[in-house]
């Protein structure tokens, strides 16, 4: 392990913390910057044993495309869920669905689970990494295999592409 990696185990997190602190601070003073740097260095250092390896960004640009897609889906999801919630409830078809995933990296699997929770009528309930299954609860399912295919094709495939796994 190089000295730099030992002092800054998570350089990206360090930068994000410094950036966020400066954004949240009331004034961009030298004192605040110093505080930001102290926090940015110490927090990743203290928490480093909790971090599961560092996934490499293979294609960052694909990440921006996925982000835009997820934001669009969130807006549609809200609309969809709003309609379902206000409409007649006996037409709801809620179901538990097992989505087979082939992502080994825990961080990437967490990202997928979070995206699923944020988008159309689906909440991730559990990840079974040993069996490679993401347990999803869906508010309204017409065809199960269609939903599984949508999750795999819309979110899992781009994530695998972005992190090259």
């Amino acid at each position, binding site marked *: 392990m190089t000295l730099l990696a030992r002092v800054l185990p998570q350089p990206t997190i360090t930068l994000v913390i410094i950036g966020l602190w400066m*954004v949240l601070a009331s004034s961009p003073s030298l004192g605040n910057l110093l505080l930001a740097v102290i926090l940015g260095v110490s927090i990743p250092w203290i928490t480093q044993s909790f971090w599961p390896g560092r996934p490499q960004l293979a294609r960052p640009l694909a990440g921006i495309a996925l982000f835009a897609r997820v934001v669009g889906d*969130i807006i549609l*999801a809200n609309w969809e869920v709003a309609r379902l919630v206000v409409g007649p409830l006996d037409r709801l078809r809620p179901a538990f669905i097992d989505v087979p995933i082939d992502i080994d990296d825990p961080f990437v699997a967490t990202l997928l689970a979070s995206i699923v929770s944020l988008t159309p009528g689906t909440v991730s309930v559990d990840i079974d990494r040993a069996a490679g299954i993401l347990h999803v609860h869906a508010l309204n399912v017409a065809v199960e295999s269609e939903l599984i295919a949508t999750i795999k094709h819309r979110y899992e495939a781009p994530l695998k592409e972005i992190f090259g796994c």
Partner: protein
Amino acid sequence: MILDIIISLLILVGAAFALVGSIGLARLPDFFTRLHGPTKATTLGVGSVVIASLIHSSAGTGGVSLRELAISLFLFITAPVSAHLLAKAALKTQGKPKAGRTH
């Protein structure tokens, strides 16, 4: 003037989605379906209010107020985590459901 209208509309949209989320919490039949209302409402409901706030404070100072973006970032990171933990807790107490229809 136009900005005021946009801000008002965004606040109204945000409030409407927050209301729908609460209606969902009250109306939906069981724990897992109830999870859906609040997780969605926080994202778009609070998101709209936050964007309204961003426009309002940016227009006042001339610069772009980034604080609101940080708020939405935290929201988007924490909302799935809390939903996930709630669901996991329910699984622990109610037992693991099999894949398939719940009713």
